[in-house]
């Protein structure tokens, strides 16, 4: 009999302790965040194998444009990151826009977003043959320099013409190597994510800005500035990478 009283008393104490917090916790709240990025040429959506006039009297045409976007995260109020996506390969061959939506993101205030253009040294050291064929880092994506065991961060191939009368010359910009990884942070548009709501964040990258960066024009029609596989002409690869990074803007 004594045992039973003892058990009851203990159970009551435990129950009491558990509810001591003062009422049930509020239900956690979650929303969704969409990330969009559109590639453009002088304001128009990009398309492959189509000629675009730029605003400086030249024109350009594209064969392929792809790049790695990594460590996409939301910036929380204490500046720590809320990771959304480790890495993806953005390929603009068939569509001008990349879009992805992340669900179950804790509601609250966010200062903005940040992500990497390319891969940081830890991602860049990974072995592509260890990834399944549909993974963005797999050896089947053709974004790898096998002679130096490094990923290619950005691949842009196309044709340029400085004045509309001339003919096109080929340009090739393939950038990589750890030192060309660029971290980008966007804090001009802080937002509040409410329960069951979706916040859409939109970015664009315009080749008008890449090539005609006001502080560094890259003469994409000129044989001295229209070709780099990074190691062959590192300074040009660096300029290109800096201009691509600077051209990514939040709309």
């Amino acid at each position, binding site marked *: 009999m004594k045992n039973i009283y003892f058990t009851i008393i203990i159970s009551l104490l435990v129950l009491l302790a558990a509810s001591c917090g003062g009422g049930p916790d509020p239900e956690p709240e979650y929303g969704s965040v969409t990330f969009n990025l559109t590639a453009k040429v002088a304001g128009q959506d990009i398309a492959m194998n189509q000629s675009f006039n730029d605003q400086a009297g030249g024109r350009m045409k594209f064969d392929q444009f792809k790049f790695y976007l990594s460590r996409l995260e939301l910036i929380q109020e204490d500046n720590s990151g809320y990771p959304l996506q480790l890495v993806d390969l953005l390929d603009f061959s068939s569509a001008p826009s990349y879009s992805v939506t992340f669900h179950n993101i804790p509601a609250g205030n966010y200062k903005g977003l940040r992500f990497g253009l390319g891969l940081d040294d830890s991602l860049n050291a990974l072995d592509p*043959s260890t990834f399944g*064929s549909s993974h963005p880092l797999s050896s*089947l994506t053709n974004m790898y320099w096998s002679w130096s*065991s490094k990923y290619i961060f950005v691949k842009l191939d196309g044709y340029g013409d400085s004045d509309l009368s001339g003919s096109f010359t080929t340009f090739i910009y393939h950038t990589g190597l750890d030192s060309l990884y660029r971290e980008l942070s966007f804090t001009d548009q802080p937002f509040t994510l409410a329960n069951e709501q979706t916040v859409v964040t939109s970015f664009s990258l315009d080749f008008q800005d890449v090539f005609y960066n006001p502080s560094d024009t890259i003469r994409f029609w000129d044989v001295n500035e229209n070709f780099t596989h990074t190691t062959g002409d590192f300074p040009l690869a660096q300029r290109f990478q800096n201009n691509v990074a600077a051209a990514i803007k939040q709309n």
Partner: protein
Amino acid sequence: MPAAPFIRQAMLALGISLILSSCRQDDLLRMPMYEPYPLELPPGFPDMPVPDDNPLTTRRVALGKKLFYDPLLSIDSTVSCATCHLQNLGFTDGNRVSEGVHGGLGFRNAPALVNLAWNEDYMRDGGVPTLELQVLAPVAAEVEMGINFKELVDRLNLDPTYPQLFREAFDRDEVDAFGITRALAAFERILVSGNNPYDQYRFQGKTEALNASEQRGMLLFESNELGCTHCHGGFDLRKNGFENNGLYAQYVDSGRTRVTLNPDERGKFKVPSLRNVAVTAPYMHDGSLTDLWQVIDHYASGGKGHPNQSEFITGFTLTTTERTDLYNFLHALTDQDFLQNPAFSEE
């Protein structure tokens, strides 16, 4: 003592699970998939480093060997690894620079494949950190095999024999990049050479393995004056690292700088092992020296004096006999067992 039975039971359970788990370990090794490749290292060799994700199993080695000799790995099915890495030439190809698919010429001389497991870097500029990753290079290179990996994987998956062999060697359903790179690397790890006359003399107590001239050549080779062993020393007649051996005053091929972009490394190349060097002509990264006489004369001249030239390349004078002795010694680095070992040959 009400606790005793419980403790006894717990001990029993623990004991059984220990036995079970150790059993499992042994059983695993006895399972054909994990059967270790029986590799015996030559006397004087350190343990072989093997990556965790690529144990040296009989099946992986056998599959790697099949792939190594299979021209299916090239875009037009004309070129296999063995086209440029022939066993009787110490796994080199005898050409100044290699010729791949469509007769395309590369810009470098094919290096010997020997004792690769102990190397810390691959390729002449060291751009590749593991043997597994190295496989991706020749396959994709336009002047070598010129095929993209997706095409290769698809092709092997359609082959009547490969899918089964991959399933048996790896716990995976199909041919993939992981299996291809692991199998080829496993085969390359067993390409161990350690039984040339110099090995026999040094590590196996066979004093008659080297004749008088070869012994004199050995002393020259090991002397401070010639300094060869600063770079070509140790069990594998090489050290890990990159050196500029003064071949040119100006290098067309920037060597290590190609991957590090550091100008202080211009003209530095991976230090090669001198094993089987008598059969691996022509020499150096570009195959520019045609025989070992030219190599000896190059080192005797003290190099062309590139700013990055190693301080150990200082030049020396040899009498005619000494020059011949050194030449003979370099020939005593040929390991006939290695060049003829059927375990490495096409079946």
